[in-house]
């Protein structure tokens, strides 16, 4: 555990899990979309749904979508700000079973042609976990530089990614592989100790069989 998760983070109250964690969930989801949000559908589950109103959970998730960090004073005004920017936002209840009590499903549509569905949970403190992307299981926190690659389930793509990282002297902290079904779409989640240069990401995006490259530099 990082020392500054014990004293810190600097955040807008009232709850590290229901407010700061919720901002981080929105922030990560927004980064994963990879372009400005046009429309968002936010579904809350468990404690998030039951006590979210008093904790500002909805405002917090929207604030994250707008690119705010947990210490941003404008979190309380996020719904108004989103409205001013013409972003269409709806809330609802997530019908899940056996999910973490602080879970949200965030469906996003961008100003271009991108869209994504992110399921994430707030673990306590302000730490979060991204549980699913577009219905495929994932398991990462967003605390370190994270690379997410959607690719066709074919031989060689893992090696392309790891070779690129080795070439850029980026050390892999954790690596997870998922696929919807054999030969279909696969997702690779790579948490790293160093940031990945933009040109390497651009190169990766052009490799045949790589469908989508998403990267964010980490929350803190």
């Amino acid at each position, binding site marked *: 555990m990082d*020392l500054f998760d*014990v004293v810190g983070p600097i955040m807008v109250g*009232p709850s590290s899990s229901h407010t700061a964690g919720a901002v981080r969930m929105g922030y990560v989801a927004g980064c994963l979309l990879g372009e400005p949000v046009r429309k968002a559908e936010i579904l809350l589950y468990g404690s998030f749904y039951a006590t979210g109103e008093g904790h500002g959970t909805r405002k917090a998730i929207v604030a994250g979508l707008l690119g705010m960090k947990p210490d941003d004073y404008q979190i309380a005004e996020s719904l108004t700000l989103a409205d001013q920017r013409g972003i269409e936002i709806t809330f609802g209840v997530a019908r899940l079973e056996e999910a973490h009590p602080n879970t949200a499903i965030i469906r996003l549509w961008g100003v271009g042609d991108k869209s994504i569905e992110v399921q994430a949970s707030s673990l306590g403190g302000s730490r979060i976990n991204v549980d699913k992307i577009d219905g495929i299981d994932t398991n990462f926190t967003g605390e370190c530089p994270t690379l997410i690659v959607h690719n066709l389930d074919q031989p060689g793509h893992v090696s392309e990614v790891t070779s690129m990282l080795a070439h850029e002297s980026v050390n892999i902290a954790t690596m997870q592989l998922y696929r919807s079904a054999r030969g279909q779409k696969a997702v690779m989640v790579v948490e790293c100790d160093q940031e990945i240069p933009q040109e390497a990401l651009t190169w990766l995006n052009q490799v045949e069989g790589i469908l989508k490259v998403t990267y964010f530099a980490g929350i803190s």
Partner: protein
Amino acid sequence: MTVYHSLQELQDLAEDRGVAVWEIVQQADMDASERTAQQSYDKMLEMYRAMKEADAKYDGSLLSASKKAGGDGEKLHQYNVSGRNLCGDFVGKVMEKAIKMGESNACMRRIVAAPTAGSCGVLPAVLLSYEEDHDAGEEQMVQALYVAAGIGKVIAENASIAGAAGGCQAEIGSASAMAAGALAFLQGADAQAVMHAAALSLKNMLGLVCDPVAGLVEVPCIKRNSYGAVNALVSAQLALAGIQSAIAPDDVIDSMRRIGNQLPCELKETGKGGLATSESAEHYLK
């Protein structure tokens, strides 16, 4: 590589190397995070200054989302300056700052989670009051914050700092232990006395449940920051007098973990027991 997994290890490292506890905590942070000494120090200074700013920006006219919390810090301030202050200037100030920070948190103001948002008032209350009343320098206060963070990290790794996992003893209890250790350090205690101040503090908070009304970080959380802060003062005073915890500091932390596991989930931040299910609680949001 500087690593500690218990308060005993933290104490031993400081004693063996002949340095202060805060230096071990800083070195371990540098080793774990690849931050330089300056980067680590600057980040801790940033936390301290954010606490100071949050205290200065308290607004007694604000109300929380429930419209029920706010303004008590101002009431306490008025009483403290009325000339009839029962607890004395320093203790009165500590209580006031703790409640103010707890209210600021409930009103969606910017605070420093230490270790959590719900317990964010304890540490700044004792540290800021100490700096103001004892003419301490900012550098000393940052060092005290390292001591607190080191103690909190050991508690987080061996027990918990989340109410949902361990009850309020894990939040206000941990904050109070961190603050007690920091205060003992500021008053010149050696490494052993610092650990015992933390242990005495946590020991008195064992068993405290997390039963927030309507699931909000308001009742009983805000006022409990004040109690946690004063508990830290009592514990530091005991330790500075040379009084030790009969139960070893790390055993107190382990006891907190076991008690937390034995607490029913109704009393761990679910709003399904204790104060949260009292008759008054049903009327709280009405």
